C-alpha cells in the first residue's frame, strides 16, 4: 500500500530531515510514527502528500511511484489520502455539514451522493447533532472529529494524521483514537504521527520510530519507546 525505498530528504537549508528511510505499510494496517521533536515525522508525511519532494529514493502509493508523478496529477494522488492535522484546519464560516460536504463538492460529487454521504460520516464520528454548528461553537475534540469526517468522506484507502491529539486533553484524545480505530476497523490504512506516549503504549499497534531522520525501530505491537529517544 505505502512503501518508502531508500528515501532521503534534505531541505534547502541543508537540514537532513530524513536519511535512507525504508518502510513498508500494508493495506489495513494501523501504524504509529513516533520520535522526538524534529525527528522528521512531519517531513515523512509531507513526502507522502507530495507537499515536499524527496532528495533521493522512491515512494510507492497504491502500486504507483508517486515521486515520478507530474505536478498536474498531484490532486488525484491526494484524493487517495485523507489527512488530519493537529490544528483541525476547518473553515470558520462554514457549518460542520458544509465543511464536510466541501470536500465532496470540489471533486464534483453528485449532490445526491453528498446528501447521503455527509450525514453518514457525521454519524460515524458521532456528530450528527452538531451538523449545523459552526466550528467556533465546538470543543476541540468535536472539531477534530469534523476534520476526520472530512478526511474520510471521499473514502480514501489511506488516512494520515499528524499529531491529531496534540491539542486535546487525554480523555478527548481517547475519543479521537476510538474514531480512528473504528475507521481502521473498516479497512482504511492509518498512519499517525504522535507524541502521545500513553496512547501508543496501550493500543499495541505497529510502531515506527524515527530519530534524527533515521528509522531506528519498527515493531509490531510496540510501545512508545525508551526515555533516551523520546523526551
Amino acid at each position, binding site marked *: 500500500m505505502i512503501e518508502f525505498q531508500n528515501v532521503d530528504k534534505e531541505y534547502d537549508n541543508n537540514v537532513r530531515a530524513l536519511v535512507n528511510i525504508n518502510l513498508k505499510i500494508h493495506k489495513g494496517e494501523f501504524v504509529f510514527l513516533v520520535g522526538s521533536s524534529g525527528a522528521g515525522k512531519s517531513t515523512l508525511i509531507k513526502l507522502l502528500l507530495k507537499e515536499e519532494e524527496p532528495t533521493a529514493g522512491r515512494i510507492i502509493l497504491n502500486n504507483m511511484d508517486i515521486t515520478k508523478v507530474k505536478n498536474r496529477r498531484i490532486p488525484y494522488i491526494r*484524493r487517495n489520502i485523507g489527512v488530519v492535522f493537529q490544528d483541525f484546519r476547518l473553515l470558520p464560516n462554514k457549518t460542520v455539514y458544509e465543511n464536510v460536504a466541501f470536500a465532496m463538492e470540489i471533486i464534483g460529487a453528485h449532490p445526491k451522493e453528498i446528501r447521503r454521504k455527509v450525514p453518514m460520516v457525521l454519524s460515524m464520528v458521532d456528530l450528527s447533532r452538531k451538523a449545523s454548528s459552526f466550528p467556533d461553537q465546538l470543543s476541540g475534540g468535536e472539531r477534530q472529529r469534523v476534520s476526520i469526517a472530512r478526511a474520510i468522506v471521499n473514502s480514501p484507502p489511506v488516512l494520515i494524521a499528524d499529531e491529531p491529539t496534540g491539542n486535546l486533553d487525554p480523555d478527548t484524545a481517547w475519543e479521537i483514537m476510538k474514531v480512528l480505530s473504528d475507521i481502521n476497523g473498516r479497512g482504511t490504512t492509518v498512519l499517525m504521527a504522535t507524541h502521545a506516549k500513553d496512547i501508543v503504549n496501550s493500543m499495541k499497534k505497529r510502531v515506527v520510530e524515527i530519530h534524527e531522520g533515521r528509522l531506528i525501530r519498527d515493531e509490531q505491537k510496540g510501545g512508545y519507546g525508551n526515555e533516551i529517544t523520546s523526551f
Partner: protein
Amino acid sequence: MAMRLRVFKNIIKQGFQGMWRNRGMGIASVSSISAVLLILGVVLILILTINNIVLETKTKFDEIQIYLEDGLSNADYDRIENRIRDMEGVLSLVFISKEQGLEIMKEGWEEEAYLLEGLEENPLQDSYIIQLLDIKYAEEIVSNLRNIEGIEDVKYYQDVIDKLMLVANYIRFGGIVIIGALMLVSIFIISNTIKVTVTARRREINIMKYVGATNGYIRGPFIIEGILFGLIGAAVSILIIKFGYEYFFKSVNDKLYLLFTVYLVPPTLLIKDIAIIFTAIGVGIGALGSLVSLKRFLNV
C-alpha cells in the same frame, strides 16, 4: 461529464461570489480598465478619422478640385471653363453644382443623412473637378488656376496626404505606447484586487489542496472574477464611447463644420467594432491580472 459540469458550475458560482465580496476593490479595477479602454477608443477614433481623410484624399490624387466664388455670371462660368480646357494636361472637366454636391454628401452618409435634411441653406459651393492626364502636370496647372479670377479655392492633395500620413503615424505610435503602459497598470491593479480575494481565502485554498482540488478548480473562480471585472469595465467604456461619440458626431453636424464631418466615421459603423475590441481586451486584461496574482500563491 456530469461531474465536470458540476465542478464548472461551482467554479463560476464562486467567481461571482468573489467579485461580490470584493466589490470595493473591484471598483478600482473596473475604473482602470474603463479608463484604458476609453483612451484606446479616442485614439482609435482619431486614427480611423485620419485614415478616412487620407483615403478620401487619395482617390482625388490625380484630381484637382476648384471651388467657385458665389454669385458669378454665366459668362464667368464660360470664361473659367475655357481657360481650364486650354491648359496642357487636362483630361476632363466636370461641373458639380452645390445642389449636386449636397446629394453626393447625403449618399455618402447613409443612415446619418437625415442630419443634412434640416439645413436652411446649402453651405457648399459650385465646383469643378479636373482630371489630369498625368500627375506631372499638377504643379503647373495648380499655380495657373490660382491666377484665374472667380476661383475661390484650389484643392490639390499630394502634400496634404504626406502630412496626414505623418500625423497618423505619430498618433498610432503615441497611442500604442500610452495604451500599452495603461494596460500594464490595469493588469497590476486587477492582480492586486484578486490578491485580496486570494489572501482572504488562503485557508480555504490550503484545505482545498489537501482534499485534492485541482489547480484549475482553485484558480478558476479567481480568473472568473478577473474576467467579470474586465467585462464590466468594457461595458462601461463601450457605453461612454457610444453616447459620447454619438453626441459629438451630432453636435459637429449641428454646427455645420461640414468639411470636417465628411471624414468622421458614422457612429453606427464604429460602435460595433469598438464593442468587440473592448470586450476582448477587457476580458484579456482581467484574465491576465488574475493569472499574475495567482502565480505566486498556488505553488504547493
